[in-house]
């Protein structure tokens, strides 16, 4: 017997494929990145005719899938929560126009946050856009919800959001081998039909569509009152307190109740928007206090019309930021339940042991660029050349870790390195600040949303250096291809690939150089040349493309030319290399006396030779000869 273990992302992917999704698009972003790879895996395994692509950004992904839904096919688009911001323009519009084939939008939220710039709640964006939401609590439930989401979308001709969170995406649990039965509601005629009243609705018609949308939501809320994803547990245990919970928080709360040694009635909500208010009110009427537990923000709580007896994130009974971890959940429930006189178990955590661990100040292992990472070489050369005074706008990707090296001074969102550099140039001019501005952005992020900013900077005469850190892949999220790669999402050959240098030139940039950051001397010379271009009378934006593949993605160049190194006996433990270069394979001895190479981590890139200005890191061969 072999039951398959599925991650939440795989369960969502399998659900989409087995429910007849025909077009699936995505832009990678933690925690959603494995959904599209899963779709391609199950498409092959179940032999389905399905088109899947890594799109260039989330707005593009959304619209490509939307066109399929307007054609009458089932379609889906996946992204991380901040990706939905990028796709929010079509989301709001599509809520009005509606769809024909079932259309599921999957934004993965990141309470914590673990890998994101915000803790935003996609359910609240859905509420603003007026799009119904399914909120799964386990991988198996997410898989099951897909079929119902498609049917709802087709019956009401409305996009539907399925909103997982990090802990669900990266949870692993057993899943039935047999595919869930494919639901009814197959599209009537999968062929695009012109329909000006919807697909090209003018503002006057948009008002009508808005009215219709409001009516749909009233009807959907009534249906959600009977949804199987909303149910009560511990029904027979009365008392003064009831709990309403959704998503992963529902199971975390159940576990906490077991630890607390109490049983409290809980209403589990799987359809947080539009909220089936009658269901909530009927449940709440039985209790003096109702605690709402949800992540990452207050979506259910906000929609409860009468919140007199409601406790949650809005009134401070539940912390209004951060993940509801088992410890937070235990503490919230312990306080609330003992507050109404219930006997609860003490926390299982031993405070003295936790304090003793804390007191040791153990070295926290922060994320660092990998050994051999070409970004490190580029950052190091840049930082050595322009020093701590220059302003370094950065961007979103592995290279955000350049902040460890003080080579990233700002990051806002995808593509903002270029716009921030543009803005700093103008602001600095006004305040008389002459510091150099050097922006860094990765290849995938540049293609995602760097091109309009670059055009803007060129056209308005901004002057700064832009380093495009081209490691030939979307590294942070697991090596998804970009339009500059010669293959597609399913590994097949791309009909065409896009040239980043040509794109940069086409944006009107006159100084464009492609160079290998491993060649640190040449690289530094080009950095200076580029900076000179930003200062020249007829100069402007200067773009350097630091061209070197990610070592995890393609290690062949190093295998072909390995450069093993040793640290000589003269090393005095000055820490320059461990701080300015910060390679995980350079390890300071516990007594601080010297640095050693950790050969289990070292990949023989030889780049750290330049990181010891005293010359104590040398090629292995040279040391043997010397």
């Amino acid at each position, binding site marked *: 017997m*072999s039951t398959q273990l599925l991650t939440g992302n795989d369960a969502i992917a399998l659900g989409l494929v087995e429910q007849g999704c025909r077009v699936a698009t995505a832009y990678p972003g*933690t925690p959603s990145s494995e959904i599209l790879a899963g779709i391609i895996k199950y498409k092959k395994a179940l032999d389905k005719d399905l088109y899947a692509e890594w799109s260039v950004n989330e707005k593009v992904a959304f619209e490509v899938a939307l066109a399929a839904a307007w054609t009458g096919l089932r379609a889906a688009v996946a992204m991380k929560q901040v990706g939905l911001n990028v796709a929010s323009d079509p989301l709001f519009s599509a809520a009005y126009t509606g769809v024909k084939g079932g259309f599921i939008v999957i934004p993965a939220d990141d309470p914590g946050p673990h890998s994101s710039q915000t803790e935003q709640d996609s359910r609240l964006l859905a509420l603003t856009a007026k799009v119904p939401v399914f909120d799964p609590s386990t991988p198996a439930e997410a898989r099951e919800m897909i079929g119902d989401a498609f049917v709802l979308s087709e019956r009401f001709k409305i996009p539907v959001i399925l909103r997982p969170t990090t802990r669900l995406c990266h949870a692993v649990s057993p899943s039935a081998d047999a595919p869930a039965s494919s639901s009814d509601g197959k599209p009537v005629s999968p062929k695009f039909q012109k329909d000006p009243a919807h697909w090209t609705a003018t503002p006057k018609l948009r008002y009508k569509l808005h009215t219709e949308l409001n009516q749909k939501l009233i009807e959907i809320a009534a249906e959600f009152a009977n949804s199987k994803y909303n149910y009560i547990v511990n029904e027979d245990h009365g008392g003064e307190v009831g709990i309403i919970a959704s998503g992963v928080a529902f199971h975390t709360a159940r*576990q906490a109740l077991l630890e607390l040694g109490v049983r409290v009635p809980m209403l589990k909500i799987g359809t947080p928007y539009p909220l089936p208010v009658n269901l909530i009110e009927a449940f709440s009427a039985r209790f003096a206090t109702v605690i709402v537990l949800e992540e990452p923000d207050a979506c259910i709580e906000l929609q409860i019309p009468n919140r007199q007896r409601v406790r949650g994130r809005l009134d401070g009974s539940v912390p209004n930021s951060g993940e509801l971890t088992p*410890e937070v959940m235990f503490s919230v429930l312990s306080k609330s339940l003992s507050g109404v006189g219930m006997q609860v178990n003490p926390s299982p*955590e031993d405070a003295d042991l936790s304090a*003793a661990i804390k007191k*040791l100040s153990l070295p926290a292992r922060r*994320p*660092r660029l990998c050994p051999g990472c070409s970004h490190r070489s580029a950052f190091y050369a840049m930082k050595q050349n322009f020093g701590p005074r220059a302003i370094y706008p950065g961007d979103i990707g592995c290279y955000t870790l350049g902040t460890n090296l003080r080579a990233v001074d700002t990051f806002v969102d995808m593509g903002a390195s270029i716009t921030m550099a543009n803005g700093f140039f103008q602001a600095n001019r006004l305040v008389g600040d002459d510091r150099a501005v050097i922006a860094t952005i990765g290849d995938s992020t540049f293609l995602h949303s760097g091109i309009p900013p670059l055009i803007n900077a060129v056209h308005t005469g901004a002057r700064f250096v832009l380093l495009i850190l081209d490691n030939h892949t979307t590294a942070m999220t697991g090596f998804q291809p970009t339009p500059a790669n010669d293959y597609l999402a399913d590994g097949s050959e791309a009909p065409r690939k896009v040239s980043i240098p040509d794109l940069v030139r086409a944006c009107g940039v006159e100084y464009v150089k492609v160079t290998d950051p491993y060649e640190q001397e040449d690289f530094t010379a080009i950095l200076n040349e580029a900076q000179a271009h930003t200062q020249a009378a007829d100069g402007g934006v200067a773009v350097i493309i630091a061209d070197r593949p990610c070592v995890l993605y393609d290690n062949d160049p190093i295998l072909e030319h390995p450069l093993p190194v040793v640290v000589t006996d003269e090393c005095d433990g000055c820490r320059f290399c461990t701080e300015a270069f910060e390679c995980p394979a350079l390890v300071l001895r516990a007594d601080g006396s010297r640095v050693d190479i950790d050969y289990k981590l070292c990949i023989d890139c030889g780049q750290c030779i330049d990181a010891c200005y005293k010359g104590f890191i040398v090629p292995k061969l040279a040391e043997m000869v010397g």
Partner: protein
Amino acid sequence: MNSLTAHELKIVIAGIGGQGIVFLTRLLSQTAVNLGYPVVVSETHGMSQRGGSVISHLKIGGSEAPLIQRGSADVLIALDANEAMQNLDFVRRGGTVFVSSNAELHPDLLPHLERLNIRTLHFPASAIAVELGSPETANIVMAGFVCAYDGLNLPLEDLQATIKQIAGQRAEGNLKALAAGFQAGKKKIEDAQPLPENLR
């Protein structure tokens, strides 16, 4: 659905990115599933994988909450002494810690471990993996060691079957690593508590 059994086994697995925490977790969880237990795992992905601390939570036969509460884990498996200490407060009273290192934990922690009746077992999994000629299999050596102590109620032959099922080309090396860890673990048990002559 949603059945909560009385005997839930909660395991925290900790290490650093690149040590094979995800695969070790997969080996243990798939074995538990093959034996018919409900399983829930929580993995670490994304930025924290870049050389940072990596931690998996594995629950066999229990609730569907993905994370384990501090103070409630039955077992902590740490592929590194530093990560063992960082995550020690996950372990419940009377729980067990398996550490892939001969380095003792910090002396300030030992009285607490004694007070809480937490047993700590050290094992040089990395050194054994290096001896086998495949340093990257220290995670599997550790699985064999834990199995020798019957730390997870997962029999050796079932772990072997799972390796054949999921390890692909690496199955042979992983089976060797598992056996080496298991044998060394058994030997450690014998050395620690010599059996009476008639039972050897």
